């Protein structure tokens, strides 16, 4: 059985939670107050992630999806459990569609999207064959490199003389309304609610008792990172451009120009966006395969890799004809989608209550 260390889980979770969120700009609807909206989302999101970790703590030896049949009974619990791999597969398809729209419009114009996605999926399949332990080691190596590149970019942006701190003020000039509209429910679902897929990895960690603390730490770090990048985009572009830009953080990297000598660093930005998208897709597909293995009582999981990766590829290719429609779904449909809200908030809350009451009754009886 594969085992990952606490540090590996931490690095995987940080990259996963930052994920594709920074490509499209998180909480752009809140304008110049987006950083504040991200911080509030981080607070509520961390509480949600803590609840997920408590559920697995209250059901020792079971993965998150196995808790549903165990607590709600097989008639209600099994269909709820099956909804998870279906949702994970759909979200993996959405990330594949993100790559389909990002890479051909930025670093590889003219290359057919299916070729880019084919290579992307082949590498993911290879990673899935190697297992989560290898991905943990890769995340341990890649995270410091990503943070170093990001730090250099921040220094170069400041050196380019495009930072206008006055763009951040006045704070809350349009009230709390637009902040809450971003925080609930999209701010909490995106990045934090989606950590549900990581719950399938927690049972593989060598120090189970420290899963909760590790996840809280990664949620706080990811939240602060996203808030900082949003604030950077606002100080460079101002509220209106930040709200309208399709890829605000890609545009941020493009804004680097130190004495017309250090410029056009777009490729570095796209490369680390792609790695984050790669790891997030990997975790979703890993969670899908592990869920299917658990729900079908299969001995080996490798048999599911090819069909699951192929479905994600087809979903990504057929999801949206253009990036505008693709983003419109995230903004208008997903925050209010009953499937997202019930699987990420309502059912976990009920599961937490049932598990907690049963655990309490058990300890009283003993």
């Amino acid at each position, binding site marked *: 059985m594969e085992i990952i260390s606490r540090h590996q889980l931490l690095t995987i979770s940080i990259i996963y939670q930052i994920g594709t969120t920074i490509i499209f700009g998180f909480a752009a609807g809140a304008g110049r107050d987006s950083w504040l909206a991200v911080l509030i989302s981080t607070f509520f999101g961390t509480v949600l992630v803590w609840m997920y970790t408590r559920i697995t703590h209250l059901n020792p030896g079971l993965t998150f999806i196995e808790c549903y049949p165990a607590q709600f009974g*097989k008639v209600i619990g*099994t*269909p*709820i*459990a*099956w*909804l998870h791999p*279906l*949702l994970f597969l*759909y979200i993996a*398809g959405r990330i594949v569609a993100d790559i389909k729209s990002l890479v051909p419009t930025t670093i590889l114009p003219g290359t057919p999207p299916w070729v880019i996605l084919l290579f992307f999926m082949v590498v993911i399949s290879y990673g899935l064959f190697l297992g989560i332990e290898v991905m943990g080691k890769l995340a341990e190596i890649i995270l410091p490199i990503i943070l170093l590149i990001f730090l250099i970019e921040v220094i170069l942006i400041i050196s380019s003389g495009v930072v206008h701190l006055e763009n951040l003020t006045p704070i809350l000039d349009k009230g709390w309304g637009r902040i809450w509209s971003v925080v609930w429910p999209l701010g909490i679902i995106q990045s934090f609610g989606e950590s549900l897929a990581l719950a399938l990895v927690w049972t593989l960690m060598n120090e189970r008792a420290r899963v909760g603390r590790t996840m809280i730490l990664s949620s706080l770090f990811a939240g602060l990172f996203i808030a900082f990048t949003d604030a950077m985009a606002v100080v460079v572009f101002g509220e209106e451009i930040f709200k309208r830009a399709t890829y605000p953080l890609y545009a941020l990297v493009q804004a680097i120009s130190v004495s017309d000598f250090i410029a056009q660093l777009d490729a570095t930005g796209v490369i680390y966006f792609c790695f984050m998208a790669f790891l997030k897709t990997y975790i979703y597909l890993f969670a899908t395969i592990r869920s299917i293995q658990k*729900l*079908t*009582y299969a001995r080996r999981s490798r048999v599911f890799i090819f069909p699951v990766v192929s479905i994600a590829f087809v*979903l990504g290719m*057929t*999801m*949206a*004809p253009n990036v505008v*429609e*693709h983003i*419109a*779904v995230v903004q*208008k*449909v997903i925050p*209010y*989608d*009953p*499937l997202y809200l019930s699987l990420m908030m309502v059912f976990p809350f009920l599961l937490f209550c049932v598990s907690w009451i049963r655990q309490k009754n058990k300890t009283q009886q003993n």
Partner: protein
Amino acid sequence: MGDYILPWQSSVMLKHPWVLSAFFLIIAILLSFLTWFRRTRHEQEEDSSGNQDRNME
């Protein structure tokens, strides 16, 4: 009706946001039968292997 064949497409999701959830729910219920069937088989296999172990002892 043609819209409902590929419910994950953004055009369908924007027009009929509930279709994907309904589609997943139907698939989840159908797949649950597979789990129930496999579970019974899995329990039978475990029982038979347990009996074999006891006979060996």
